């Protein structure tokens, strides 16, 4: 059994061991152990300030971590160990380790000086150096995946928030990642635009994409996630399949979190 777990860990898409992080004197992550399996869909929930976004950002080294180890597809992320001493990697090495990981941000972060197609194709052109025709083909394909083939020539400011986020997803997809991270992808959206983004994410989940999603969308988590992780105070408090976690929370903090969410959602659902 332990042997099987070991093999599982080595095959993990992302593996975290004892990960900790502080902002100055403030400890934002403590002792995080987590394996994200290949093809697994993991949702991270928790109150704001619980460290869930920081954890996600650590998984791609957009934030450095101070303690523990993070392995992405078996390779140590962000640091090299030489003679027992840990040394921070250069940006190029970090980029190499996380090259199969795509990221979708809360604020979309599209580049306003490029069209939707330009945004999606930029990395193919600039980073991969693909010929123009191929860039165009892959970009249009990615835009079609998120249902925005007809918006290829529009600039981001002419698109709705939901469309912008879908372009951002297409931009990540164009680089054919094996792992996609989502940092509160629907939190900046008007309520009526959330659905179209979740629909695209559902589609990706159905295609076997490894996904880690920091979200407040409990419905989405319940429906799509293989595993839900509840964080509070920089720690993983509880995790498990959504059916168990949502119906039978073990920790009082999760129970309270779910209660708050339910009462807020019921009073709000009339609108």
């Amino acid at each position: 059994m332990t042997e099987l777990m070991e093999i599982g860990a080595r095959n993990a898409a992302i593996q975290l061991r004892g990960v900790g992080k502080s902002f100055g004197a403030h400890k934002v992550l403590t002792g995080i152990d987590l394996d994200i399996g290949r093809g697994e869909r993991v949702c991270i929930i928790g109150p704001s300030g619980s460290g869930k976004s920081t954890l996600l950002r650590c998984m791609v080294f957009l934030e450095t971590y101070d303690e523990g180890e993070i392995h992405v597809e078996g390779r140590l992320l962000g640091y090299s160990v030489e003679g027992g001493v840990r040394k921070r990697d250069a940006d190029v090495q970090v980029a190499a380790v996380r090259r199969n990981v795509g990221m979708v941000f809360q604020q979309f972060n599209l580049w306003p000086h490029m069209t939707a197609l330009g945004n999606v194709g930029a990395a193919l052109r600039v980073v991969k150096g693909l010929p123009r025709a191929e860039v165009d083909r892959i970009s249009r394909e990615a835009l079609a995946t998120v249902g925005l083939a007809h918006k290829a020539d529009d600039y981001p400011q002419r698109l709705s928030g939901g469309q912008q986020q879908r372009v951002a997803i297409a931009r990540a997809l164009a680089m054919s990642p094996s792992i996609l991270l989502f940092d509160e992808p629907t939190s900046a959206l008007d309520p009526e635009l959330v659905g179209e983004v979740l629909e695209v994410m559902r589609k990706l989940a159905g295609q076997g994409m490894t996904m880690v999603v920091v979200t407040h969308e409990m419905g989405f988590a319940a429906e799509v996630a293989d595993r839900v992780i509840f964080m509070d105070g920089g720690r993983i408090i509880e995790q498990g399949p959504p059916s168990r976690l949502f119906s039978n929370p073990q920790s009082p903090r999760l129970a309270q979190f779910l209660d708050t969410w339910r009462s807020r959602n019921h009073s709000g659902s009339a609108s």
Partner: protein
Amino acid sequence: MIDLTALAEFAPAIWRGLLVTVEICAVSLMLGLVLGLVVALLGRLPFRPLHWLIRGYVEIWRGTPLLLQLFILYYGGPSLGFTPSAYLAGVLGMSLYTGAYLSEIFRGGFDAVPPGQIEAARMLGFTRLKTVRHIEVPQMLKLVVPPTTNQMISIIKESAVLSVITVPELTLTTTRIVSETFNVVEPYLLLGLAYWSITSLVAFASRRVERRLVQA
């Protein structure tokens, strides 16, 4: 009354002065533009001593009169073993002066690019240099055209002080005509018209550039 025959008489000399002003301004503004961009880019490197050096440059060159800087270059240069021609001192002085102002404008333009856009580029594998070139510079340029134009127009007008280090540009030429002929109104009218033509051209060109950048 304005004497048209007098105008015709001064016009060729003033035209030559105009060409000198245009030439010096064009060269200095171009060099200043490049210098400002280089300084702004260097300021983004995570290297403290460089930041102090840049701060020092900007504060000194922006904080003292162009006239004084030209004096030091042209009249003070020889005692330091550097004897520039009036023309060279003029171009050098104006370029350094322009660079100090423009580097600050460009720095502001870079700072205005949201960090999230840079993170997005990094996550897609852009190197630092490629992020600057493809994400930061294009957006910075769009933001800085109006303030840069203002600054350039202001510096073109300030180029009049080149007359005190004997560069035969517009103002010096005109002042000589005035003192030789005792005609005051016509030469100065022409002088004003000449500066206004140059600055209008710059303003026109900048609007064209701005339109193209906004479309792109």
